[in-house]
């Protein structure tokens, strides 16, 4: 996983609440056994019409927001299906930061595991950013994870982030390797649980 530190660039406004992962990555892109080639699928029904032509009105098809590494998003972004393809696709499209209020839990975890920084802001702060970046002249932002700060000319807004998630994003850690360092503790935990509650962990037939 790539580490995240400071991301500077254009931010695109996507104010709609409850943008679900079916919209972020429609199902016709899901029948794959790899992670590759998903950039084309991101927001496919919003970016392209049924004939495959770009919809000129969609923000990511317009200057200066095309290719924006930062998205300012509505409440409950990423709700619905667990499909990590949504996050793989966003990352492949070049999105590195999502600035929102609340994110759906599974999507939020998927972002963490793929080096995508999802920032939870108070609604007023997010709303102010939505207004700001909708102006093409003011769409440039810098998101500084180490300093926990969003900067635009003359303005700086701090943000909170859970320490463990910040650490993972900054280091690009492999959590499986870290967990396997506890393999003996896991075995001991399982042995104790199997003895005390033999009905708890099944052996599936």
């Amino acid at each position: 996983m790539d580490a995240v530190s400071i991301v500077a660039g254009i931010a695109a406004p996507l104010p709609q609440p409850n943008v679900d992962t079916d919209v972020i990555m429609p199902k016709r892109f899901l029948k794959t056994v790899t992670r590759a080639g998903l950039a084309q699928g991101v927001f496919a029904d919003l970016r392209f019409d049924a004939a495959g032509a770009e919809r000129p009105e969609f923000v990511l098809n317009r200057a200066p927001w095309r290719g924006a590494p930062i998205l300012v998003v509505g409440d409950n972004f990423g709700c619905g299906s667990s499909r990590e393809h949504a996050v793989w696709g966003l990352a492949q499209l070049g999105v590195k930061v999502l600035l929102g209020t609340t994110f759906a839990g599974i999507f939020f975890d998927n972002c963490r595991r793929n080096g995508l920084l999802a920032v939870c802001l108070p609604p007023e702060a997010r709303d102010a950013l939505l207004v700001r970046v909708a102006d093409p002249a003011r769409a440039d932002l810098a998101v500084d994870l180490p300093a926990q700060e969003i900067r635009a000319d003359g303005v700086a807004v701090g943000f909170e982030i859970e320490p463990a998630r910040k650490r993972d994003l900054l280091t690009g850690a492999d959590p499986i390797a870290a967990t396997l360092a506890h393999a003996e503790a896991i075995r001991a935990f399982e042995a104790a649980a199997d003895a005390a509650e033999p009905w708890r962990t099944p052996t599936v037939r």
Partner: protein
Amino acid sequence: MPRTLYRKLVDAHTVRRLDGGEVLLGVDLHIMNEYTSPQAFAGLAEAGRSVFRPGAHLAVVDHVNATRRNAAGDDDGRLLIETLEANCRAHGIAFYGLGDPRQGIEHVVVPEQGLARPGMVIACGDSHTTTYGAFGALGFGIGTSEVAHVLATQTLVYAPLKDFRIVVEGALPLGVAAKDVAIAAVAAVGAGGANGYAVEFAGSAVASLDLAGRMTLCNMAVELGARAALIAPDEAVFSWLRGRPQAPADLDAAIAAWRGLASDADAAFDRELALDAAAIAPLVTWGTSPDQAAAVTARVPDPAAEFDPARRAAAERALAYMGLAPGQALAEIAIDRAFIGSCTNSRIEDLRAAAKVLRGRRVAPGVTAVVVPGSNRVRAEAEAEGLDAVFRAAGFEWRPASGCSMCLAMNDDVARPDERLASSTNRNFEGRQGRGARTHLMSPAMVAAAAVAGHLADVRAFSGEV
């Protein structure tokens, strides 16, 4: 210190406390499907890792397979199914593929096998894993990276959630189903209103639900953002488990241990909500988010009445997508398709409820009606009861194979643009059942009523039902 049921389950599965308030959470059972697992196995192979506890996993084919016949559907689907089977074979993991009498929708199959039990932690690469809360098990959905983590370590790095209790007291009126309670909860809390929370459903109306109803309710908890849902296990759960093919051998000892599994009387919840069961009516969704719902007797709301600009814009966009106008009576909205299926509502109890409405009636001309039983076992049981004949006589297509099918339209069951569906599924998202397709969510009996009427309809007007 008094603890909630959720906190007890987290504590009982904490292998290690980690930095930043996270824990290493032991997973008792991990379920996989064909479309969210291949990249996880590929990741293991790349890193040279093995499966930590192969017996604690189950793989079920359900998302991409056809249900018109027992087949993969297309080449891409076949590759996903064959990849899952090969991965399971290589690692010694149980696999229920097409043609296996145990195959079906994962969240239907696992409970009917007796593999969802009180006190467990169950993870799966599918958001509707909250279903297992019906048994007092902590079930939650995970992404593919976490699927790899569970395969390799039998644990997850887990940030404990806050506690939210939703109490539904009273008696549910006739014609009101568990699905209506679920939609009422989503509408009350809002889609995403419970992000960061585990929801415990409690109260007399919840206790009165059978296990199928409890599964429906917990299944849809994810639509309000809850990462997990729980209902304290009781006698209904214990008797449900008896005789299941893979129920624990020492079930009596297990039941004795499960009896104390509940939130302490004085446990504190971070949030509470009370719903009055008597005030819940048969509901339908009118928009493109599950919280955009109203009683079937109501009218399409006017977005202009919405104070919050983002919500107003979302409602306007939803009505444009749905092809509806403010003030239109919901019960006058004509449908093209009726679909009964999905991990939310495809169990035998759901089919019985729909069949009650359909007995002696016919699907309205012009409506295409389909029922996909949730599993091969459900279909066999339904056929033994003669329910297939009731559906067929009414003009429903009775599918010979089981899977998610038109709930998410990953197979060949895809609605066309502008087609309108009455659907017993869980999501009315834009494009969910086909690009441009318009979904109205409701209970299985309400889907049957709509199929017969040819438009959204109040099931309470159908004598002889419920």
